[in-house]
């Protein structure tokens, strides 16, 4: 573990329709693992992972929310103080793209003004081989995704949690867009969610920074 000049804690939230692969993306990012049948998330799950971006270490405090409509009323609690958000859809499910639009809108209206949002079209592995032929599994084109991202000022990626395509890239890109936050100070009693919040309990971290192919 090298000593980065500064560590920034970033509170990040994942939003998106059920089963688009939010938990799978996080699992890939945090544990470099993939499970074919992951249990649906209930409420939200909390995870952390560190990542080096340039000369900074970013510690992500991740809230992976549940996609089902019924749980949507919980979402504000999780995006309220978030500095970053991944809005995820499934490129084989058009309805999930519509849902993604709604989330982007809601974030712009309700979340903090300087939130960094990445739009993520997941399950790229399902279409990687076919060239957008008519019977392709792909139902949302890359152009549509890009267009929405440009329109709304979002980062944009197509990813696969399964093949790990582009997964780390999303988090690196977010990290480099996050403004250089207050560097870590030993200020005690800092509240969770604060930008400068420190983690003094190294062992709890699942992996070293080197895991992150940044």
């Amino acid at each position, binding site marked *: 573990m090298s000593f980065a000049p500064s560590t920034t804690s970033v509170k990040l939230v994942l939003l998106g329709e059920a089963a688009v692969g939010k938990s799978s993306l996080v699992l890939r990012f945090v544990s470099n693992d993939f499970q074919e049948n992951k249990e649906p998330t209930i409420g939200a799950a909390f995870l952390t992972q560190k990542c080096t971006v340039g000369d900074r270490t970013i510690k992500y405090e991740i809230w992976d929310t549940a996609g089902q409509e*019924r*749980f949507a009323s919980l979402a504000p609690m999780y995006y309220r103080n978030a500095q970053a958000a991944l809005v995820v859809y499934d490129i084989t499910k058009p309805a999930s793209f519509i849902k993604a639009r709604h989330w982007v809108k809601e974030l712009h209206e309700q979340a903090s003004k300087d939130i960094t949002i990445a739009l993520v079209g997941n399950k790229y592995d399902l279409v990687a081989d076919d060239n957008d032929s008519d019977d392709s599994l792909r139902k949302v084109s890359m152009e549509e995704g890009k267009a929405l991202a440009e329109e709304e000022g979002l980062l944009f990626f197509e990813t696969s949690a399964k093949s790990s395509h582009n997964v780390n890239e999303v988090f690196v890109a977010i990290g480099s867009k996050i403004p250089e936050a207050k560097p870590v100070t030993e200020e005690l009693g800092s509240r*969770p969610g604060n930008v400068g919040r420190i983690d003094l309990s190294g062992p709890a971290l699942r992996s070293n920074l080197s895991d992150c192919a940044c």
Partner: protein
Amino acid sequence: MAPKRRPEMSQVSSNGHNEFVFGEKGGRGKNLLSFLKNLSLTGPLLNSHKNDNSEEINRNINSSIYGEMTYGYTSPDTGGLILPKAAASLKGKRLSLLSFFPYGLSKIDTTDGSGTQSNNGGSSRLASPLFRHATNSMSALEASLRPSSRKSGFTDLDDDWDAQIDDVDPEVAPVVLKPVARSSTNDMIDLLHPDLMAFAPSLRISVERKPSQRHPSRDRALMDSHDRQAEQEVRFLNQMLTKLTKFQNILLKNDGTIDLHELRKLSWNGVPAELRASVWQLLVGYLPANKSRQASNLMRKRSEYAEGLKNVSTQILFKDDNVISSTANSSAASVPGGRDSNNRDNSVNKDKALYHQIKIDVKRTNPSMPLYSLAATQQSLKKILYLWAVRHPASGYVQGINDLCTPFYQIFLGNYIWQLQRKAAHKTGAPDDSPLFIPGILDDNDTQEQLILEDPKLMTYTAENFDPSRISDRVTAIIEADTYWCLARLLENITDNYINEQPGIHRQVSDLRNLILKIDPELLQHFEAEGIEFIQFLFRWMNCLLMREVSVGLIIRMWDTYLSETPLGFNLFHVYVCAAFLIKFSAELKEKDFQDILLFLQNPPTANWTEKDIEVMLSEAFIWQSLYVNKGAHLR
């Protein structure tokens, strides 16, 4: 149907011990105590009768350990002993009472040295499930012993009669148990109890001790822990038998109406596995207490389910992986733009979305258990969940409900298998268990049922190793219907948890917070200092009733208690259980910061929990409920 008392045992005093002696009065058989000693199974239960004056203790021992059973023992001439394989494969380190008492002892009475059949209806009906249980627990124990004990001098005796017990400490175990001749034992089993023959391959085991070549002190240490384990098993077995008898007495009561009050009282502390399906159905109020109404009521409910399914099936064809909607077709054909067709489109889309959601969740339900990755299981769950959702539009399907239907499904599937096993056993002479069956499931005309009955492996099946696609459509529909109605009853208890905004869960969370404020204010303070919001971890505990935090087997035990509460415990009582669950970790949590608290509570260390842990937690919850709720909580 009270089991007959066993008169064959008497006690004599020798060497300052009271010893159990087998045999008709006077006719001295084998000395059980020394035998047990040899197996290092002497524990408080067996020692406790030292006090000759205590009739109470004697009576308890007689009735609780032996009362419902006769004694299995082979001829004193040979000194051989019949044990199920699982026990023998432990190589005598700890030949479990649990595994051979209910079996050998209930079946075989050889006081005259030749073996005469003893017919004890009260107990032998239970032999098979007990045996199964024993075998299961034995293989688990065996696995745990494996590293130290696998190879040395032991041969697995599928084809050989003599299990050599090579690592019994010679000082502790002075008695040599000799092998039984193969043929005679086999014949005897055959003679004594025909349905034992199903297990004959696993029964041809006798015990012989060889001088130990192993480290005496290490062996002694092993024996000590084995002693303790064995002791626990004896106690467990006793409890189980007494409990079973009590349940049977309630369920088989002759006046035709089951006393639900008594049943709740008893079930609160756990329901025996083989009776769980019917007891649960009684407790949720699905199976009527009045026995004369049971069959007709179930029939009505089951056909209601089938009807309901038929109606939704016109929209959704479950057989097909894609959503095929007849209304979708018709609306596609109709002129677009009209208000009606818009509505219809909307509702069709809603149905599709609902089905899609259920489909993806069923695939992801309980991924760690093979049963739930089978197509037949998933098909059943989809139907149950979809029908429930369309018939309860205020809440509709909410993730987590998929988890809640699994205990019912699993228990009812297991019950069908159990009924088949008892039916098969009855055909070969075992007592008739049908009075304990949930009505309407078995049917001689069901060809698939006949096939399963003829399956030589029938006796080894449980809900966890049986593919439900082998079950006839008729019985599949029954299991689904029973699951559906019991799930519906459960969900009635917590409707507010799944309607819009889930107010029930928010109320539970705030109730729990208040409770922690009273019980463990330091913990609350610590959480607040760290910025933990209760909803952040409690939401899931409430939404899935701790099913994500605790293994299904233990959840089933918890539900015995929840279902015995009035009203059902999934709502109010569950809050107290969650409080007990949280406070169990209080000390650890107070040492942790925000992120470690959350990581810990999302994945609490319950992997090694046993029913004991659950029962302690339930008792604490009960105490708090009685302390903090003014109403006279529940009936214990």
